[in-house]
């Protein structure tokens, strides 16, 4: 008997030893499982190794409120009815049914879920021993440990994923800021920001609305083609808006996604959306300022070109006319108009006195003045009558100009010896001739400006004679309409005609200088809005 008992103890020790080894190996295997199903399958395999002639079923219950879910079904039968839940604070429950040869165990797992196991002997004559029950208890504890390991790894994975996602959000916020602020990109910064905001907050959809004065101006949907009104609940949304250039931009995101359904948006999501909206706001402002700077730069370049053209055309010095004193001036405004004057000696001894003003400013006006200068120089050599010359000029200027461009001009042909002047006013300001008796003779427009209409309208020249001591003044509207800070015109307060009558210096250039001083005194600090041009001639002998 003693030998038998010793043998029995040896056998038991061997079995326990084998089972401990099996447990250790089993744990290593189980701890690699990636899912509950995987863990259960591995576990069933380990138990099967110890109970080769048994059916092993495993069931799982996330909490008491739901039914058992079968995860391993190897034919132990309708197992749920055999399983008793652990009572009170107990972590496990075990029952052995000697009739059906079933060992049933339920283990409360670390997250309060339950795992149930039923081991059913296939051979009814096989008896379940205490060792079997102890072994299975150990095994189901092993499952609990492996389940903890699985949860730990899952949590760790989720934590790493969450941390990576936060890094991604920060990184993307920086990248998006750089991308939306790029001035050379084709895509709108609003669209890019909407896409990024949706992706970073896991919103399923989004929309950007641009409104002005309560009217919808533009809508951008993400994803494109979305029928928002049919798909989105108004409650699960976040929004951020700003106003720029009288437009209100409102970003809206809807339905925060998760693997288990729609979640409420978090504070972080709102912060992200606000930050992206601010980036778009800054980008729009920067684009606007950049465009303004480019426009200013282009305007300045145009003005430099126009000024260069005008400078090339305007006389650097005037010819000396025996018995006469002449002076002229052109002060271009900042925006460079199309004023022009000249005193051109002709081959027959006469002099052409010209003053003109193109409607418009900048390069187009300067180019038209350049055309006028070229055609005028050519036609003056042909000695055709002044009225005919003006008609020819009208035609070529009409062809050379756009619809809104024309030239007002005053042309006078002076025969110096006789003092005879043939003059013609094509839509220009009246020229003044101050007689020795103090009277002023005005030469008003006798025809339309040059280039206004493509027709041979009558242009009539007239002839006068300038006597010794008499003076002629030609000017553009940059003088009469020079305005002060209150936008009032020079000619209204200090009529040019009166200045001309009462101001009679010995030298022509002194008259011009004094006239400019008088205008500057009137305009004060107001900016010069148009070119100032004048030409003065006085007969000295």
């Amino acid at each position, binding site marked *: 008997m003693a030998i038998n008992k010793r043998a029995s103890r040896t056998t038991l020790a061997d079995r326990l030893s084998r089972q401990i080894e099996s447990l250790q190996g089993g744990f290593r295997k189980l701890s690699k499982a990636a899912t509950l199903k995987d863990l259960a399958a591995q576990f069933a395999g380990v138990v099967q190794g110890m109970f080769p002639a048994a059916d092993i079923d495993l069931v799982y219950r996330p909490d008491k409120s739901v039914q058992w879910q079968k995860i391993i079904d190897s034919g132990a039968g309708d197992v749920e009815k055999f399983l008793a839940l652990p009572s009170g604070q107990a972590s496990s429950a075990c029952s052995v049914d000697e009739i059906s040869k079933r060992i049933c165990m339920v283990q409360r797992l670390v997250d309060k879920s339950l795992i149930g196991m039923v081991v059913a002997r296939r051979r009814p004559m096989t008896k379940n021993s205490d060792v079997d029950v102890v072994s299975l208890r150990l095994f189901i504890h092993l499952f609990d440990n492996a389940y903890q390991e699985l949860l730990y790894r899952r949590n760790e994975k989720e934590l790493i*994923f969450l941390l990576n996602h936060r*890094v991604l959000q920060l990184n993307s916020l920086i990248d998006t800021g750089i991308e939306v602020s790029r001035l050379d990109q084709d895509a709108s910064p609003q669209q890019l920001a909407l896409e990024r905001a949706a*992706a970073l907050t*896991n*919103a399923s959809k989004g929309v950007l609305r641009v409104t002005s004065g309560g009217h919808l101006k533009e809508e951008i949907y993400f*994803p494109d083609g*979305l029928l928002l009104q049919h798909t989105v609940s108004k409650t699960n949304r976040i929004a951020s808006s700003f106003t720029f250039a009288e437009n209100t931009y409102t970003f809206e995101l809807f339905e925060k*996604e998760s693997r288990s359904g729609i979640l409420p948006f978090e504070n972080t999501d709102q912060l992200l959306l606000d930050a992206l909206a601010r980036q778009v706001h800054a980008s729009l402002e920067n684009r606007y300022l950049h465009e303004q700077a480019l426009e200013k730069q282009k305007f300045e370049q145009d003005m430099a070109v126009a000024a260069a053209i005008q400078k090339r055309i305007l006389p650097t010095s005037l010819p000396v006319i025996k018995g006469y004193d002449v002076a002229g001036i052109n002060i271009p405004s900042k925006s460079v108009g199309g004023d022009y004057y000249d005193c051109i000696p002709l081959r027959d001894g006469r002099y052409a006195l010209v003053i003109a003003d193109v409607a418009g400013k900048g390069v187009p006006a300067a180019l038209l003045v350049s055309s006028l200068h070229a055609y005028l120089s050519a036609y003056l050599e042909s000695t055709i009558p002044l009225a005919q010359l003006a008609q020819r000029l009208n035609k070529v200027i009409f062809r050379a100009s756009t619809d809104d461009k024309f030239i007002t001009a005053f042309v006078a042909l002076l025969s110096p010896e006789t003092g005879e002047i043939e003059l013609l006013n094509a839509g220009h300001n009246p020229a003044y001739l101050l007689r020795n008796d103090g009277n002023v003779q005005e030469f008003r427009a006798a025809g339309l400006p040059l280039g206004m209409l493509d027709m041979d309208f009558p242009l009539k020249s007239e002839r006068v004679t300038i006597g010794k001591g008499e003076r002629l003044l030609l000017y553009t509207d940059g003088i009469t309409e020079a305005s002060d800070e209150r936008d009032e015109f020079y000619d209204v307060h200090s009529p040019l005609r009166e200045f001309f009558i009462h101001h009679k210096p010995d030298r022509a250039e002194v008259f011009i200088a004094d006239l400019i001083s008088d205008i500057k005194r009137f305009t004060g600090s107001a900016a010069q809005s148009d070119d100032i041009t004048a030409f003065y001639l006085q007969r000295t002998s």
Partner: protein
Amino acid sequence: MEQQFTLTSEMRDNRLIISTSGYVNNLGGEAIAKEFSRHFSSGTKEVIINLAQSKVVNSIGMSFLIEIIEQLQEVNGKLVFTNVDPAVEKMLTIMGLFRFAGKERTVEDALKSFSQRK
């Protein structure tokens, strides 16, 4: 602008090629995972996901892609992404997907890389 999600798939040289179009979010990720599972259960171990028409991916969509990578790793398989938009590439890199998945310029390049792998 990104469209609603759609996908197409084909088998070439026993490799699954999934081409997506639109936002890879929960819906998109689920559709990719479903298409993958259909072929994975019948033994496909080499998969190409062509993202040429997908310029926006969110983290839920990425979680599905990670699961596909994990499942393929267990059977010594491999996933390769192709035609990845630079912004999406950066996202997938930060989320660690390229530590276990490949990246090629085109589908043809990916197929070639699989051939060289063997």
